[in-house]
């Protein structure tokens, strides 16, 4: 009996939109999908999309004897033999990609994709990413989590890529790792995140502390026209905004001279560098309202994650104002957080002792 047969999947939704996922759904969405759904629930906008739930993958394995075939191939695997790992991996992945998806699953994905595309008119360009559930793996790449397909357009292509993501769970290193560590194939289920490709009017990064002083009451934003990659990679000098986190006031701004922007070329389904027309080069890539929206987004992320964050964000020109500032990725800030952890404890005097200390030590107020 296949390890996958035990599941009774009747009545389970195969797809879960990010904005309607509840806490019970998170474990069915894999790490990436759950993170997107959690952010949405916490009031952090992300590019719209849905998860193909783990049950869809399980159903795929169950149908047409796929699970049994995988079990059989795995049973024969010699985990010390690298060549055998590669052959087993190829065989399993071929077994997955050549099979037709169970009809109920396919229909669910088509419906979810159609619903996602509807507000934008026509087939929406999406990113399809694998999102494994085995959060405890020390190196996520072994689980094949990094598989990402960009600029996927049309339901057929989406279905094809979802299957490819499932197959990616069986790359050679991943199966060897799981076999060596006694992680049965049942311990790793695969979800897939399908998410709108961002067509950014402006994008960049935001830090929820001042990277120069470590001041946690500040938010610092770097921003440029178009997509955010040139900002992240440092190819251009971005506009820079410093805000007070609590008052949500812009304390400082420095508008850079920006020569080019990375934009979406819809026809060729890729991004291209475009020279910015002269009159726009020295304009701010963000309005004050945009700056505040980005800051609010970063602040919400920090609160949700419980520590200072380094956020990649974008303003999507396809989305309506008020909902167009989206988080693409958020990571804990490390430099100052590490410093804070190693800093010796300060003894603070309060009451009159505190007052005395203040009167005795030179006071300087910086402006």
């Amino acid at each position: 009996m296949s390890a996958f047969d035990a599941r009774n999947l009747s009545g389970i939704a195969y797809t879960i939109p990010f904005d309607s996922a509840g806490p019970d759904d998170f474990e069915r969405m894999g790490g990436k999908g759950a993170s997107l759904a959690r952010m949405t629930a916490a009031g952090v906008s992300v590019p719209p999309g849905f998860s193909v739930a783990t049950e869809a993958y399980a159903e795929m394995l169950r149908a047409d004897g796929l699970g049994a075939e995988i079990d059989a191939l795995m049973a024969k695997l010699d985990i010390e033999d690298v060549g055998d790992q590669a052959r087993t991996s190829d065989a399993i992945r071929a077994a997955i990609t050549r099979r037709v998806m169970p009809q109920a699953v396919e229909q669910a994905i088509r419906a979810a994709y159609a619903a996602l595309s509807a507000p934008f008119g026509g087939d929406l360009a999406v990113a399809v990413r694998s999102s494994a559930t085995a959060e405890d793996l020390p190196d996520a790449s072994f689980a094949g989590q990094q598989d990402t397909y960009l600029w996927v357009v049309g339901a057929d292509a989406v279905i094809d890529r979802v299957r490819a993501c499932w197959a990616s769970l069986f790359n050679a290193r991943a199966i060897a790792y799981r076999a060596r560590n006694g992680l049965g194939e049942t311990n790793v289920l695969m979800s897939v995140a399908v998410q709108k490709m961002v067509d950014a009017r402006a994008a960049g990064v935001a830090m929820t502390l001042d990277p120069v002083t470590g001041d946690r009451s500040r938010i610092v934003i770097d921003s440029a026209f178009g997509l955010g990659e040139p900002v992240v990679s440092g190819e251009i000098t971005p506009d820079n905004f410093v805000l007070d986190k609590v008052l949500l006031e812009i304390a400082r701004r420095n508008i850079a001279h920006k020569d080019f922007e990375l934009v979406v070329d819809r026809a060729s389904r890729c991004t291209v560098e475009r020279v910015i027309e002269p009159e726009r080069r020295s304009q701010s890539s963000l309005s004050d309202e945009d700056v505040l929206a980005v800051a609010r987004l970063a602040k919400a992320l920090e609160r949700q994650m419980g520590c200072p964050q380094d956020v990649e964000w974008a303003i999507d020109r396809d989305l309506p104002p008020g909902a167009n500032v989206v988080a693409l990725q958020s990571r804990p800030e490390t430099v100052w957080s590490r410093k804070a952890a190693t800093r010796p404890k300060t003894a603070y005097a309060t009451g009159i002792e505190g007052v005395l200390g203040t009167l005795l030590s030179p006071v300087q107020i910086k402006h």
Partner: protein
Amino acid sequence: MTQQARFPSPYDLAPPPGAEGWKDLYPYYLTFKDKLRSEEDAKFWFCDAQHWPSPFKPFDAITVEFAVKCLGQYNTRHYLVPPANGVEYRIHNGYCYMSPVAVAPELIADRVPQFLERAGHYFQNWHSLLENWDKKVRANIADMETIHFEALPDAVPIEWIKGGVGLDNTYALTENYDRLIQLLYKTWQYHFEFLNLGYAAYLDFFGFMKSLFPSIPDQAIAKMVQGVEVDLFRPDDELKKLARLAVELGVDAALATGTVDEALAAVGQVTGGDVWLKAWKDAQDPWFNFTSGNGFYSDDKYWIEHLDLPLGYIRDYIVRVKRGETIERPTAKIAAERDRITAEYAELLDDDARAAFEGKLGLARTVFPYVENHNFYIEHWSMSVFWRKMRELGQILQQAGFWHDANDIFYLTRQEIRDVIFDYGNGWAVGAKAAGPDYWPDEIERRAAIMKALATRPPQPALNEPPAVITEPFTIMLWGITTDRINAWLGGDDREGHITGMAASPGLVEGRARVIRSASQLDEIEEGEILVAPVTAPSWAPVFGRIRAIVTDVGGMMSHAAIVCREYGLPAVTGTGTASSRIQNGQMLRVDGTTGEVTVLS
């Protein structure tokens, strides 16, 4: 700071033409002495234009003397604040300059135990001592109210003869004058009983927050500490209530036109008018003991003596009420915002720091209501009564022919007034002419000309060489004078059309400038303008509904202008040093109260 960067010496600052001889108008101990030049020039003096923005008349020097002397006594003699004594002060060309007196480093340690005992007692018993303060100040005001100056009668009352009193009416006149001055002296001693400690506790919280969040805006700290229900705002709140009541009762049309007497008479004719008139009367004591000045000048106008002022504001508020605006201060919103800001900063702290945060904030919030409220009880209420009583005396002496106008009395020093009272009584007793009526009118005219000449020239922001860094806590807190500020005054930031000051209240707006030099010009302000002034008083609040932002020459984070602007949600940049002389009426300005920058756009 470079060696050459210094302000002029007072000894090189001649008076403006026509003001020669000004020194004789003030007590000998308040002016720079030629003999002491090297000693006086070795000190750094900054102008306190925050409290005394324009030259003051000889009598008005009493406010400088009592206020600054009493400030000093609490540091030096009551609490023995370890590093800080009082503040030396001088008058030069009609303006007031201050120089804080530090305690010699070797003496600081010895003062610590005494400070802990003395100040500690106040911090530990703050509420009960403050209750006692409230009683003392109210009793002191009541005592002042009992003083009446009466013209000398033709004959000593028959009852005094029969009762064998053996004194004449001049005795009471002198005694009452002396008593009034003594009660004022008490007023100012009480004023500082809590103030220095209150600021110090606030400063402790302030410094703590700056150490944890180097870029925290000053106003965020202030917002966490400020009270919501503040007596200082009561007078304005009372006007708002009266405006709303007028609309509710339907007496607003009757109030809308005419002089105060005409309007009140018209209200009396309308149904419900008696209800409004009673409310109007009830609000006056004590809340109309409120000035559109700052209490330090004899010509500050108090509402209770100039009912046209509160009525004018009420008329403005009525218009806004009828437009459907909410004129009341959004106290619930202010309280919620204060809680939100406090919670968000607390959230950013680790456990140890959060415990200290709560302790220091708790103390700051305990002491801060005094810092906010004392102003009503002293500068407004007490000073209202004091100036009123002095005018009563001025009136009697005017009737006795000593001068032409009751307010001319303020062209005399307080010692000279004692002489005048004797002169008046002397003539009366002898049955001959007093000397004053032939002497004072001309002398007053001469003095008035000097005052006018002094007012033609603005003060220097400071005198002599500044210290490398300003570390004196009270200088920074009360006057907003920091090393950065001084550098800016010295021309460190002289970009054309660019003025910097303290970011006192957040927000960014643009609008036309309206430069106001005194409260009497307040009615020139038009809707949507930016108020530019040497200094503002909290009592200017009623015009705050009309303006977009405030820019002042002087004032710190906790200056009255800053407190009120934060309360009203208006952007404010304070302590610019020179904005009111560099900005012209009608210029377009951009005011950034978040960064403290003012830009002249055109």
